[in-house]
């Protein structure tokens, strides 16, 4: 079973890297980009076979390590 964790900065936390990417896109002529937020995606291969148990465990991983919940939010996708 695979899990995908998406980690993004919380709304309201300024993202200087996203802003730099937005500027660069503007320089390349992509004028319609109003905002860019940059995050990360983490893929996990799990031995688990039970989806619900896997989701609970991956959420615990997010809380303990994968995300810093002071500034980041996460979503877990089991696939």
């Amino acid at each position, binding site marked *: 079973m695979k899990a995908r964790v998406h980690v993004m900065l919380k709304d309201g*936390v300024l993202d*200087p*890297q996203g802003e730099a990417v937005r500027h660069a896109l503007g320089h390349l002529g992509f004028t319609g980009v109003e905002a860019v937020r940059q995050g990360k995606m983490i893929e996990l291969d799990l031995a688990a076979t039970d989806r619900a148990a896997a989701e609970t465990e991956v959420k615990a991983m997010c809380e*303990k*390590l994968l995300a*810093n919940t002071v*500034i980041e939010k996460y979503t877990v996708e089991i696939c």
Partner: protein
Amino acid sequence: MKAAVITFPGSNCDRDLADAFAKAGADVVRVWHKDTEIPAGTDVIGVPGGFSFGDYLRCGAIASRSPIGQAVVDFAGRGGHVIGICNGFQVLTEMGLLPGALMRNAGLKFRCRPQRLKVATTDSPFTRAYAADAEVTYPIAHHDGNYVLDAEGLARLEGEDRVAFRYIDNPNGSTADIAGVLSENRRVLGLMPHPERVVEDAQGGTDGAALFRALAGMLAAV
């Protein structure tokens, strides 16, 4: 005073920090990240600067969960003194010993320069030797020193007089110019600038020496 300085893979200020403690009269023990205990009799733990674990995932994230990490949290929980400098500050926030988080510098540049700071409180074992509102210069060298804290957390920090240092001419976008913060019991300090790099004339300045001397004086007395 007995000081324990921790070394993670990628730490690069551990020797400087050990030297600064030794110069202030401390017995220094070096502790490896795979160790699980802080040596008996330790009065203060130093978490040094560098790029622990290559800054993978987030700066300080892996180090904060390494085997020695829990021992540092437990030591602080028992009322032990801890100082985390630069990457060490990032580690202490990741451990939850200090509030807030350190993000990429607002200007996206690695900032490396002597940095003027204001001592924002003298009510701590680390800053008690400085005059109120003293101005000091410590070097900075970081890419992720942008201190972020929500409004509620900031109000609490300010209300409890827990901002230890503020930048004069903010180099990285930190909230309220904050360069260093104290824990609730004032015994844990995290700061981005490097006091251990200014403890003797050969380093081009001595503004940091008072911090280590004050700590040594206080901990020798207990």
